[in-house]
């Protein structure tokens, strides 16, 4: 056998080796696609069914009898649910504002400064994120009980409704949100180009001027992302609110939990659909800001 024919045979053999895996690869990628489609269906179908049946006329969830908005009417006429909605919004707004301020300052300190006790602070900032929420909830419950703060309410009136929101709930929400805001803002700070700040001070900008003109605007996408995350987490929270509010105080999730315990009705589907629409809006706002912020870290990657 001449050298060239050996080479040709080798080439042919190689080709055969390559063809077989290619077919396997194609099968593999088809399976991968199928798997992904099924998982997305698994994630989405239950949610879509809840929305679908919120427009069902029948009071039974499993049979469709016709289109109706009666459950939305029932929802609006249910004063406890409307109060719960306003409670949710109020707690979310107040706790977000407080935790954004405290969390942003903490992020600046952790990312740009050295100080005594920094390592301990690192741990203290991460713990509220990883601790199971039920553990944090009973810790707060025990604290409010022992300290005598109790469930003292903040009484106010919004849209003609009298609200009384326990301070303990707001404090609880701030306690877990500070950490989330700090993590998000820190990620942004770590990505930032420090030479711009150095350039500013080279051009004789004072520290305060450098901060307000350079650092703060550049931090803004992180702060907005942190605020949106805090706002969402606060709106979504059930466990901390449930344990730190005492009886009779509802946010929307607490109200939904109470209703589900009493029995499943399409009214719950209507409330759920409204909450879903709220979450969807927040995601879209977040994406909008993210795009404006120049495609930095995806909002999702901030989690750890």
């Amino acid at each position, binding site marked *: 056998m001449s050298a060239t024919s050996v080479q040709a045979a080798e080439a042919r053999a190689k080709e055969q080796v390559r063809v077989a*895996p290619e077919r396997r690869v194609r099968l593999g990628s088809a399976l991968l696609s199928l*798997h*992904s489609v099924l*998982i*997305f269906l698994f*994630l989405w179908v*239950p*949610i879509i*069914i*809840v929305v679908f*049946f919120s427009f069902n006329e029948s009071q039974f*969830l*499993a*049979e469709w009898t016709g289109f109706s908005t009666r459950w939305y009417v029932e929802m609006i006429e249910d004063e406890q649910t409307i109060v719960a909605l306003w409670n949710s919004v109020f707690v979310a707004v107040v706790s977000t504002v407080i935790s954004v*301020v*405290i969390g942003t300052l*903490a992020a600046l*300190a952790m990312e740009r*400064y*050295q*100080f005594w006790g*920094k390592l301990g602070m690192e741990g*203290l*900032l991460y713990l509220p994120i990883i601790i*199971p*929420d*039920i*553990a*944090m909830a*009973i*810790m707060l*419950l*025990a*604290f409010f009980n*022992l300290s005598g703060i109790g469930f003292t309410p903040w009484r106010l009136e919004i849209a003609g409704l009298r609200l009384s929101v326990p301070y303990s709930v707001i*404090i*609880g929400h*701030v*306690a877990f949100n500070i950490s989330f805001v700090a993590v998000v803002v820190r990620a942004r700070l770590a990505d930032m180009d420090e030479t711009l700040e150095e350039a500013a001070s080279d051009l004789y900008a004072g520290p305060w001027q450098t901060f307000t003109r350079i650092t703060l605007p550049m931090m803004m996408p992180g702060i907005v992302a942190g605020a949106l995350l805090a706002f*969402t987490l606060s*709106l*979504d929270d059930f*466990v901390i609110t449930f344990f730190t509010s005492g009886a009779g105080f509802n946010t929307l*999730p607490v109200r*939904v*939990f109470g209703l*589900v315990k009493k029995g*499943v009705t399409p009214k*719950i*589907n209507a409330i*759920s659909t409204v909450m*879903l629409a709220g*979450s969807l809006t927040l*995601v879209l706002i977040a994406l909008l800001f993210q795009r404006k912020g120049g495609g930095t870290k*995806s*909002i*999702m*990657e901030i*989690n*750890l």
Partner: protein
Amino acid sequence: MIAALQKHRSLQGGLLILPAALFLLVFFLAPFFIVLGYSFAERGTYGGVVWNFTLENYQRAFDPLYFSTVLRSGWIAALTTLLCLVLGYPLAYFIATRSEKWRGVLLLALIIPFWTNFLIRTYALLTLLRTNTGLINVTLMNLGLIRQPLPLFGNDFAILLGLVYGWLPNMVLPLYAAISRLDHSLIEAAQDLYAPGSKVFLRVIWPLTLPGVVAGSILVFIPALGAFITPALLGGGKSLMIGNIINNQFLAAHDWPFGSALSTIMIGIMLVVTIVYFRMVQKEAT
């Protein structure tokens, strides 16, 4: 004074961290120590807490009656994590290897359920799974495919399904981040050297994405271990986890010391798991 502040950066840093430090000391660390203290205290006759040192609460936690639930919770959480990993890894790989346009769409399809209220999603599952009135059983029975409703609700299966459903995005998102950071020239190099697909995965892709696997596993295991809503709604009051016992001790049985002991055990497991996992990553990285 401002001049003095500008000179001492460490003082500045201290001032910036002060609000967070104070807030978390008072409303996080102090509450933790109260619960830790409670766990060694006695229960009062009428449900209060009497500060007499005792180990009885921990002994009770290891009583088979409760400890079986503690073990089961750990088992369910571990199984949830494993299932999320097995289901989530291919999905994350799929998303990460699409074109940029598709990646955006698919990520959004993942993020929206993730940002959707956990309670609402659990409720959505409940409307499907319930034994006699759930959509799945009603549909199957109407179609004549089954005579008896399937046992989809009020058991460990329902809890497991609920936890996987609820926390799967927590697994997929860090995995996606890790996979999309992969250096493809390394995979190509392995393929050029005739490494079979399985070897490319085990020797190249898996080790390089391990940080994502670890992050995702922690983000699933910890909330699954502390699950309260899922077993409360899908366990049908029969199938319980530690979270439900803690809830009962605090809100129904008024045995705060025992509830505190269970919480302390839960926090302990969480700390150990987190530390072990992070050690593993560090070892793998060096």
